[in-house]
């Protein structure tokens, strides 16, 4: 036991009280007010309060929130901060390195990179949030119905999910992109095609596991109707995992947008997206690496931040509350 000795200090306690103290009424009965039992000393905290406290104590998640706040600020105000338009070409200042005039430098057409990255933030964040929001709605409704109704409906609905899911979603996404053409809204629509499947499965599993818990039976016993049970018990209890899932959907959507733009079927030039910026920088990466650096940094930091937030939320919203 040498290993841990000294790591936890020993408990200190009185083993004997010296004889003189014996006279001091120590052997009088202890009044019942002084018996401390069934008393809870800790302050009362609800699940959500507890989660918020845990999240606040998580430096990575808080850092993630800060990065996202900065990115949102960049998306909203960035283009206004500089006197250039994202598609304003000026060959006399092509391929400049970062300077006071052009914070992130300029590209081969002399377009200001800072403004273009800020525009990219608009596209990426819009795609991420919109796709996540739509998919959460579809996934929660589909999975919720499937899990709540159960039986044959559930079986049929899940069969459909299985059939679509057997094929990698990227194939569907690319097909929809080919069909709709290279626009931001087509990326969102393409993502919506298959993206909700995972959410639906998770929501269904959540609903099923909560449905089997005794407190749902207890609600039935006191006479609560099905819809009441759904809104008072099932939804509040499955909110945690749903939020976590959706948080992870956002970075995935941002990744797909960048990926599609990078391989040339996402957003079409001259509109700037982080993926297209990265793709543009390829041709003279050796001479002008900064053209690569800024969009790459923006994508990675954003996805990083969302992943950290997701991890933090997962820990904070863990249904297994400490007792």
């Amino acid at each position: 036991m040498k290993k841990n000795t000294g790591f936890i200090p020993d408990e200190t306690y009185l083993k004997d009280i010296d004889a003189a103290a014996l006279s001091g009424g120590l052997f009088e009965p202890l009044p019942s007010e002084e018996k401390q039992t069934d008393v809870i000393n800790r302050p009362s905290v609800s699940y959500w309060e507890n989660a918020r406290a845990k999240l606040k104590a998580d430096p990575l998640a808080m850092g993630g929130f800060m990065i996202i706040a900065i990115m949102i600020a960049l998306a909203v105000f960035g283009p206004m901060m500089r006197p250039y338009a994202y598609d304003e070409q000026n060959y006399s200042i092509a391929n400049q390195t970062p300077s006071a005039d052009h914070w992130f430098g300029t590209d081969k057409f002399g377009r200001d990179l800072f403004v273009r990255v800020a525009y990219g933030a608009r596209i990426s964040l819009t795609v991420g949030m919109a796709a996540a929001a739509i998919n959460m709605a579809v996934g929660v409704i589909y999975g919720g119905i499937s899990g709540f109704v159960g039986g044959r409906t559930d079986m049929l609905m899940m069969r459909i999910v299985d059939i679509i899911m057997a094929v990698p979603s990227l194939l569907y996404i690319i097909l929809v992109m080919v069909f709709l053409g290279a626009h931001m809204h087509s990326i969102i629509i393409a993502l919506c095609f298959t993206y909700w499947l995972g959410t639906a499965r998770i929501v269904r599993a959540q609903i099923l596991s909560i449905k089997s818990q005794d407190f749902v039976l207890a609600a039935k016993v006191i006479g609560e109707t099905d819809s009441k049970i759904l809104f008072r018990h099932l939804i509040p209890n499955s909110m945690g995992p749903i939020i976590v899932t959706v948080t992870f959907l956002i970075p995935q959507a941002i990744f797909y947008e960048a990926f599609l733009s990078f391989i040339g079927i996402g957003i079409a030039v001259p509109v700037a997206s982080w993926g297209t910026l990265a793709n543009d920088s390829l041709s003279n990466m050796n001479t002008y690496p900064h053209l690569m650096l800024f969009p790459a940094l923006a994508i990675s930091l954003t996805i990083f931040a969302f992943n950290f937030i997701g991890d933090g939320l997962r820990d904070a919203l863990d249904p297994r509350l400490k007792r």
Partner: protein
Amino acid sequence: MAKYILKRLAAAGISMLVLVTATFFLMHAVPGSPFSPGEQRNVPPKVLENLRSKYGLDLPVWKQYLNYMDNLFHGNLGYSFKKLNYTVNELITSGFPASAVVGALAILFALAVGIPLGITSALKRGGWMDWFSMILATVGISMPIFIIAILLMFVFSMKLQILPIYGYGTASHLVIPVICLAFSPIAYITRLMRSSMLEVLRQDYIRSTRARGVPELMVIAKHGVRNSILPVVTYIGPLIAILLTGSFVVERLFMIPGIGRYFVTAVSERDYSVILGITIFYGAFIMLCTLLVDVAYAIIDPRVKFTD
């Protein structure tokens, strides 16, 4: 067992039918057919008409669909609309070897790195190895593959100049593409292996085995690893799909003559028959792989029994 596989194949058949049908009609609903005058300005209209009838494009869509399905059953995916002398089958057979080599190497590499990394970080929880592999895992999950690819290319090929920038043929050509492809799978496998190992180490049977005096190394190697590797096995199915995404970037960026590159080219050139053909091929291939993985799982885990 045979019955199980047949059942799975039947289910895969349904998924394929949905995919083929959806793809077919989607591709035919795209405005502007490949040989319409709008698309091919410098070809005389008469030639276009001939081409259209040669490819059966002048028939009603449902007839084209039936023809296509008929051909598909005979393993014939039709002609490319752009590379006019090639059949889609030829494109796939010429691209498959390169894609398969890079993909298989990436899977092996990802497993070979991710599993030990996950195990050590679980065993030395909170130590520097754990810290390092968790950072690696987060980076791997957060950095898009094309950024990793560009970074590696920039450092090793352009600055250090120790590896070729692109191409295919020698072993040194494979290094960066395989690392790129394996990067995010390594991250996933490390995370998965770590959490699964931690979970297994908490199990009663691990304590029981220790209580029998089995040396720690054997407890970990015999009981810990085998139990915790099961989720990793189930991950191999989705892993193949992830590699597919990666292969589009890697094959394009490093000029590897694989299916992924043909596919991306076909997409940007709107070569519908190739898109259709390769999509079907990918779908079938991945479903086959998933089936094989599931069968392998059932062999590893005695609790899973085939009933027939």
